[in-house]
């Protein structure tokens, strides 16, 4: 397959054209043009499927396609200032592309059901298309600058989708909060891009990898910090903001104000995954900068903290929101401990089961018009299809064997055990796997709690229960749920159990493990950039070799001990199976059988409970301390400096100096210039007295003068 404009560009352009058509013509089209968006994303899915199978056919870990075309070139002489745009596709990007287009297609289908009759129906589909196209562009991008552009378009779209019911104050505030909070990370991210640009004059991935391999960044420091560390930290800050990591996690729960399919797209499949995608892309930089322990700690704190908050939430979307943050924490933890493959697999698997969970939640909310869990209950009889899909996803997120969560999350935890405890690093690193496992206990517990409160037991509010209609299978409502829940089965990703039965992934066992690997920076030295044209003249000369999976761990040390890693994985797997199943049973016993009253526990540990309900007081901290005391105090200081110091000393002093000169100039003007002007006037007046007599306005007088002149001229010439 050729990677040219005609094969790659449609993936991005179909949703983008759908956006353009809907933005300008949406109101005139039937059904507000939702079918335009759907067709756009489905075509995009078909094209990315082609690319996906082509890459699968290659079956080479190191294969990648990098095509550029010149965006602008302002080079003068020796100083090069040139920016190329292009695509960079490796195995990770291709898998990500398939996930994004596939999940987005299903979300589009679901949105047609969910948003029908909504007053912002057309607007929703406009932003849905733009959002999807921006995410696709982000995955295709070959450099950080292009990625940043799409990153910001997504930020804007999430702002618009969260605040789509902008007349509600809460929605408006939530959209603003999401926008401003991610802005903190984005500014630092941009700083990182600029730092890299300043050193190597390019922000292409391949150039960055090459620079790392050649050691260009070494001995370059920014504000006393090593260049690699600085760039890695600032770029990771972009990830923190976008993926709602500690301490910028506050925006994501509020973002649940948007319509639920929008949440599914933003918080499951695309935007939050984009943050992790960025960190995975820049993984060699993070590793070279020695930032991985920091990343691991951030991820562990987020994974555990968000899980504890999710325990006490009453709103079902809030539970999903905090579980999203928690799962994103696992991804970041995986990046931190060097579990590159598993972290990326978790991005994919999480996108699938979380999109399904969000859409199921949308299905419930749309059916009962109630999202507070204490008012629900016993809905499994009325919503059987939704119930079954949600059960599958809950098992997946809990890490029960044969489901995707087990495949991905438990490999992250296994690597974490090895990284924190067995690799002989700092003893304090053991906190990371401990927090990870505590989170792994809590995750099944709160998910089962949510399921029990919604579907099992007796209806708590009979009115709400009666309001809900018995559901029947509908194509737009249930098809996406069913498809996604099928893909929560682990076989599609591990290939370990039935790999040989599935012909596509074929005889190649554990395709995911083999294909996705952290980029080896040494491969990028001496690469030639091929230009992006309509015909693919340069074919990849890379030999197709059967790749094997080797472990990489996020520290510079001796090669990981294969035996130790296997041991760690074995321990992790056994531990998490027991923890997950035990936790599910415990939760079932508590919330369905009622062996103990949760409220009693809440009273017993009242301070803890209050802390959790108030989300560790993060919002209050940001609002009360950072914004009120910090920013406003700084504001007041600046205003005092402006008024008291700057105005009084510089402005007023300058005014005094000026005043002196003004008076000097005024005197000069009055005495000297004015008398000159007056003299001029007097001279003019004198001539005026003379010449006024001549200007009579009587034509005959002019004629007399004319003839006199004629006489004199004649006289001069004749005599």
């Amino acid at each position, binding site marked *: 397959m050729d990677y040219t404009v005609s094969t790659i560009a449609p993936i991005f352009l179909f949703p983008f054209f759908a956006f353009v058509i809907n933005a300008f013509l949406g109101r005139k089209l039937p059904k507000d043009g939702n079918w335009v968006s759907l067709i756009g994303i489905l075509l995009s899915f078909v094209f990315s499927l082609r690319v996906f199978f082509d890459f699968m056919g290659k079956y080479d870990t190191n294969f990648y396609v990098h095509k550029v075309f010149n965006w602008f070139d302002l080079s003068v002489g020796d100083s090069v200032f040139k920016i190329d745009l292009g695509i960079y596709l490796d195995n990770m990007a291709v898998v990500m592309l398939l996930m994004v287009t596939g999940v987005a297609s299903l979300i589009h289908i679901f949105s047609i059901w969910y948003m029908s009759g909504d007053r912002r129906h057309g607007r929703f589909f406009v932003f849905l298309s733009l959002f999807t196209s921006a995410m696709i562009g982000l995955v295709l991008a070959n450099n950080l600058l292009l990625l940043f552009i799409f990153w910001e378009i997504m930020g804007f779209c999430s702002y618009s989708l969260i605040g789509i019911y902008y007349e509600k104050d809460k929605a408006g505030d939530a959209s603003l909060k999401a926008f401003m909070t991610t802005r903190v990370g984005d500014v630092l991210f941009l700083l990182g891009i600029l730092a890299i640009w300043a050193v190597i004059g390019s922000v292409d991935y391949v150039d960055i990898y090459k620079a790392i391999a050649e050691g260009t960044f070494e001995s370059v420091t920014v504000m006393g910090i090593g260049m690699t560390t600085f760039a890695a930290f600032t770029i990771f800050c972009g990830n923190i903001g976008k993926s709602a990591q500690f301490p910028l996690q506050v925006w994501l729960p509020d973002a649940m104000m948007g319509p639920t399919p929008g949440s599914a797209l933003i918080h499951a499949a695309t935007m939050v995954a984009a943050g992790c995608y960025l960190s995975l892309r820049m993984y060699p930089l993070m590793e070279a900068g020695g930032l991985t322990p920091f990343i691991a700690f951030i991820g562990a704190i987020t994974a555990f903290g968000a899980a504890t908050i999710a325990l006490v939430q009453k709103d079902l979307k809030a539970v999903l929101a905090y579980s999203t943050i928690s799962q994103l924490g696992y991804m970041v933890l995986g990046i931190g401990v060097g579990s590159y493959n598993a972290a990326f697999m978790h991005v994919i698997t999480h996108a699938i089961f979380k999109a399904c969970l969000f859409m199921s939640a949308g299905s419930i909310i749309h059916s009962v018009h109630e999202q507070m869990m204490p008012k629900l209950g016993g809905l499994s009889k009325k919503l059987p299809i939704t119930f079954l899909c949600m059960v599958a996803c809950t098992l997946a997120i809990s890490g029960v064997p044969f489901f995707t969560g087990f495949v991905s999350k438990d490999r992250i935890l296994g690597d974490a055990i090895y990284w924190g405890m067995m690799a002989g690093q700092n003893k304090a690193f053991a906190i990371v796997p401990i927090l990870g496992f505590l989170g792994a206990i809590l995750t099944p517990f709160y998910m089962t709690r949510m399921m029990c409160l919604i579907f099992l037991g007796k209806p708590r509010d009979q009115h709400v229960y009666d309001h809900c209609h018995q559901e029947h299978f509908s194509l737009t409502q249930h098809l996406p749920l069913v498809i996604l829940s099928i893909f929560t089965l682990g076989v599609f990703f591990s290939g370990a159990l039935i790999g040989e039965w599935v012909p596509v992934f074929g005889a190649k066992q554990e395709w995911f493990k083999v294909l996705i690997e952290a980029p080896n920076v040494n491969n990028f030295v001496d690469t030639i950039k091929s230009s992006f044209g309509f015909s693919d003249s340069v074919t990849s000369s890379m030999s197709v070799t059967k790749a094997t999976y080797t472990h990489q761990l996020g520290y510079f040390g001796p090669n990981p001990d294969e035996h130790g890693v296997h041991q760690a994985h074995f321990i992790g797997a056994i531990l998490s199976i027991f923890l997950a199943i035990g936790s599910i049973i415990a939760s079932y016993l508590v919330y369905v059988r009622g062996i103990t009253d949760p409220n009693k526990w809440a009273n017993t540990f009242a301070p803890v409970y209050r802390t959790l309900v108030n989300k560790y007081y993060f919002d209050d901290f940001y609002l009360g301390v950072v914004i009120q005391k910090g920013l406003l105090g700084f504001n007041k200081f600046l205003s005092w400096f402006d008024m008291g110091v700057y105005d009084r000393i510089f402005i007023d002093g300058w005014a005094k100096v000026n005043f002196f000169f003004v008076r000097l100039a005024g005197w000069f003007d009055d005495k000297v210039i004015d008398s000159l002007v007056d003299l001029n006037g007097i001279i003019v007046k004198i001539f005026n007295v003379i010449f006024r007599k001549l200007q009579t*306005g009587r034509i005959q007088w002019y004629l007399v003068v004319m003839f006199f002149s004629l006489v004199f001229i004649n006289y001069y010439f004749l005599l």
Partner: protein
Amino acid sequence: MMMSLASYLVISAFLFLIGIAVILSRKSLIAILLGIELILNAAALNFVTYSRFGSQDLDGHIMTLFIIVVAAAEAAVGLAIVIRHFQLKETIHIDEVSQLKE
């Protein structure tokens, strides 16, 4: 001797001067137009005179014919202007036609 070139030129010059005197001294716009006619006729007479005493061909005659034509056009337009001015200002006194001065 009497009907020589010089006598015609003197007559022509005399007419020309009287035309100028009329333009300079009369106060009526129409009278000024009369003076202009006199000047034009003086010039036309010169053309015919030189045609007769000089080159002997008829180009001078043709020039005179054109002068007559142009004079007729000029008289028509000039009188139209005078009449229009009289309609607007109720006067044709040359000294009062000085709106541009104010």
